[in-house]
């Protein structure tokens, strides 16, 4: 270690010590993904659908059970570990967010499995929302043949499982390299499944390419930032970076030339920030959101909009709260600006949208801004508030996109807003549930959206962000306008004669919507237990 006899003094590399139990929630999901791949190869086609759903749900259930076990074992409250040689943190925020992600994934898998919405193919087989032959050129004969054949593929399930595994790892990663690997593990499958829409293939593929290109850029930013921060701190460990930032660490002589160079640190942090802000869809890195949300198959959009946001905000929280709290004077003003821009731009651009999926996309941008106000608080209440908000938001989002899948006409989903006119007269129940989700997005009291908004604004206000809260409240008013416009359209406009019909879903989508509605109401009316849970879990291990 002295550096003099470098070649002779290389110590034997110790075998890494892996804490399998603490890592088991992720291992269960990755295991399910691998089994899914094998099932895709070896299980006969007619059994694959059942097998894949079974494998996916079993993996997620096992993962959730293990998360609960770890939480009951005290990991969320009175103990925490850095597992796998300090690469993965097993602490309150990890477990809470992992729990949310697995539950979201269960709901998403239920929606992926829906096969009653698309009309039966000519062979009489019922099909789902995914392309029968993703590789076929849009508009080609091969594609038409595949569409009429009644084939339905199931590769979406193992892909989703890989994505979920990466998402579970992302907020738990406690070094930058693991974080980057997790980012790629969950992003790549998402790029793929965005391209799998059965209808409007071109739009779907365009969305996927756009998402992939921009995502690759943002990953590159993240990687570059990682390298610069490594140059500054001589380590990729978040806690070690924090030590160097705060001047507590002894500096490795080999890196003495770069260590402590603030230029590297600031540029590096900015680039890491770009990578993460891209994933959460904050302005000005939000451009991909509307196109991808619109083009991707709607169940996938719902999954992406909720789970990705949870994972990315989790990682952002860990990065900022564990590695860079000492630098808060530098990053907080920037995030202030980003949060204000995100809230205002998201809310205002959403007003002009005419497509329900794009509307929800811009609404998700505005919500990213609201969540950022909680991130900026940089204290325990902010952390708890953001985690609660993420949990509340993801179920509303899942439910809302599930409703979108049900409003259909001959061309598939009728997403143009004008087609939704008078929906409240045709199917009052569905319209009422969608109105509930919109009201939750708008943050009306007694819905989960309100509790979440109150929590983050209260945290922001408690840490000197009064101006942020005022901007947040005003953009909420703007946002309320377009949510309410949709409600007006559904309830007070006359239905169109050629309007869309509301498909009767199988219990799978029904369960997804019902669960979303129940969570929305429960977190709005009786949030005590869940706020308590989030607050209790809001301590990072270093």
């Amino acid at each position, binding site marked *: 270690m002295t550096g003099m006899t470098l070649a002779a003094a290389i110590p034997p590399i110790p075998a890494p010590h892996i804490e399998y139990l603490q890592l088991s929630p992720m291992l269960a999901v990755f295991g399910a993904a691998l089994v899914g791949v094998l099932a895709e190869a070896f299980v006969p086609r007619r059994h694959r659908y059942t097998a894949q759903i079974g494998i996916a749900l079993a993996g997620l259930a096992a993962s959730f059970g293990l998360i609960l076990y770890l939480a009951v074992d005290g990991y969320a409250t009175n103990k925490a570990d850095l597992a796998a040689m300090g690469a993965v943190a097993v602490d309150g925020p990890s477990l809470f967010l992992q729990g949310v992600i697995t539950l979201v994934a269960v709901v998403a898998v239920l929606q992926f499995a829906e096969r009653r919405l698309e009309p039966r193919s000519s062979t009489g087989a019922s099909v789902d929302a995914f392309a029968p032959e993703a590789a076929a050129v849009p508009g080609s004969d091969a594609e038409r043949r595949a569409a009429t054949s009644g084939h339905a593929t199931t590769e979406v399930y193992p892909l989703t499982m890989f994505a979920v595994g990466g998402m579970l790892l992302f907020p738990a990663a406690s070094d930058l390299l693991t974080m980057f690997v997790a980012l790629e593990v969950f992003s790549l499958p998402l790029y793929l499944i965005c391209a799998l829409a059965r209808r409007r293939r071109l739009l779907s593929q365009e969305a996927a390419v756009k998402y992939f290109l921009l995502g690759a850029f943002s990953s590159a930013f993240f990687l570059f930032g990682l390298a610069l921060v490594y140059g500054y701190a001589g380590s990729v460990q978040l806690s070690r970076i924090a030590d160097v930032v705060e001047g507590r660490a002894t500096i490795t002589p080999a890196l003495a030339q770069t260590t402590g160079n603030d230029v590297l640190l600031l540029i590096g942090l900015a680039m890491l920030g770009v990578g993460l802000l891209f994933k959460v869809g904050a302005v000005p890195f939000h451009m991909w959101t509307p196109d991808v949300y619109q083009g991707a198959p709607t169940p996938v959009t719902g999954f992406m909009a909720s789970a990705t946001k949870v994972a990315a905000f989790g990682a952002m929280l860990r990065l900022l709260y564990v590695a860079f709290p000492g630098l808060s004077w530098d990053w907080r003003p920037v995030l202030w600006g980003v949060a204000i821009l995100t809230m205002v731009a998201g809310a205002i651009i959403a007003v002009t949208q005419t497509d329900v999926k794009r509307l929800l996309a811009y609404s998700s941008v505005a919500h990213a801004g609201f969540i950022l106000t909680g991130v900026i608080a940089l204290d325990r209440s902010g952390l708890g508030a953001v985690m609660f908000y993420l949990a509340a938001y993801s179920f509303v989002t899942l439910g809302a996109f599930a409703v979108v899948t049900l409003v259909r006409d001959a061309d598939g989903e009728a997403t143009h807003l004008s087609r939704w006119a008078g929906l409240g007269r045709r199917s009052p129940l569905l319209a009422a549930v969608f109105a509930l989700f919109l009201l939750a997005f708008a943050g009306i*009291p*007694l819905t989960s959206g309100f509790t979440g908004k109150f929590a983050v*604004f*209260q945290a922001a206000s408690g840490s000197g962000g009064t101006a942020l809260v005022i901007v947040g409240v005003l953009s909420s008013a703007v946002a*309320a306008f377009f949510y309410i416009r949709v409600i007006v359209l559904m309830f007070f406009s006359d239905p169109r004669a050629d309007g869309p019909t509301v498909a009767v879903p199988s219990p799978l989508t029904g369960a997804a919507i019902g669960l979303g509605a129940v969570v929305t109401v429960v977190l709005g009316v009786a949030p005590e237990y869940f706020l308590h849970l989030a607050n209790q879990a809001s301590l990072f291990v270093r």
Partner: protein
Amino acid sequence: MSFPILTVAAALPAVGAVLTAALPPATNTRSRDRNKVVPLLFSLGTLVLACVVAARFQPHGARYQMTEHHSWIPQFGISYSLGVDGLGVVLILLTGVLVPFVMLASWHDADPVVDDSGTFERNRRTQGFFALILAVEAMVVIAFEATDVFLFYVFFEAMLIPMYFLIGGFGDRTKGEDARQRSYAAVKFLLYNLLGGLVMLAAVIGLYTITHTFDLVSITTALQNGSLHFSSTAENALFLGFMFAFAVKAPLWPLHTWLPNAMGEATPGVAVLITAVVDKVGTFAMLRFCLQLFPQASKTFAPAILVLSVIGILYGALLAVGQKDIKRLVAYASISHFGFIILGIFALTSQGQSGAELYMVNHGVSTAAWLLVAGFLMSRRGSRLISDYGGVQKVAPVLAGTFLVGGLAILSLPGLGPFVSEFLVLVGTFERYPALGIVATAGIVLAALYVLVLYQRTMTGPVKPGNEGVGDLKARELVVVAPLIALLLVLGVYPKPVADIVNPSVNQTLSQMGQSDPAPHINAATTTTTGGGQ
């Protein structure tokens, strides 16, 4: 543990709303009437409970009575705390009285469409209408009971949703351009109030970061014994945040513009619900939250608010004189009256505030009487334009007579309820701000103008073509009007029971603010009235 009467009083209409909404759609006249009688029974039950609350209330007892306290979201210091003071009791009673009348008056406003073959259109429109009214009632009652700032805020905001559907979903004009007008009015109502509510939310959050509790009693106690102190900047900002929301709701000029649209497009019953019941939450909240939580800021801003309310009195009255549409005329008259109520509140004298609190009740009853009769008239011809009517008193004398009595109450004729309160408000204002008192008095003159001119144009003179068939009030309509007019007479001749209930809470509020009435000074020939009408 004592019986949670306040929770039950709010829960009964809520349960009624759910049950009503769940009733099957009507298929014949019998099931149609059942769908309307059930909600009516629930509203009558609520009235009974409101009477029980009033009977159990001891005017000289504790500040808040029949209190209930349960933890709700302890992480944010939020509790489910209920309790009523004199003002709360009176307003709950007002709500309990008015809602059954509103329902009866709106009896046919949401009837299912019956086609030529006698088949009922199968939908839940009727149930929806009455369920929404019950939902509004439940939320208003709990807002009058809440002693937790956050609990109040939640229902203050949540009541927008059923109100919005009542305005936007039901009305006398249903098709084409008219329906668009109505949906515009509903959206305007919602956006104005939501914006007010969101500004208040910012202030609610700000309040929490200073107090770390939302319990009104503990905050006011801490303020009084000095263990809690707002910086004057913080207090002013928080006061303005709360006041903005209440001023939109009340409504105070210049935040009033949603009211004429909303009342103009809503059915007469819903319009009464807006102005006589829901808007009272705004003035109630000024007294309960603005004055008690931010006494210093209230004194600082009182002159500015008084000027706005006097502008509102004159502006509302002037615009009422010029209206062509009966419902919009009533709406502008209401804006003028809300000016009087807010004037009484922020004059910060005991007469002024007693007057304002009585005025809330009297305005509710008198507007209900006047507007519901006007609604009966409008339902006969399907027009809201004043110019379509004339000489109605010849063909429908009872209708014309009750309309006149309601109007006379609106213009504060002595002997009818509003006179007492308007007099008290003016006396209370005059004590401290003589100039404003004098200007506000002009509002009374203008009130006489718009009420009597409306009466003259619609009721007197030769019968206008098309008015010959206007029938007189039917039994159901008489059941609505007669008790309201009787109530106006009682309140005008013998307001003591109501005054006795509200006066102790007025004195408590003022003493909490460290505010006492200006000493009466006797010079030259003038003497100031003290405690008139009590």
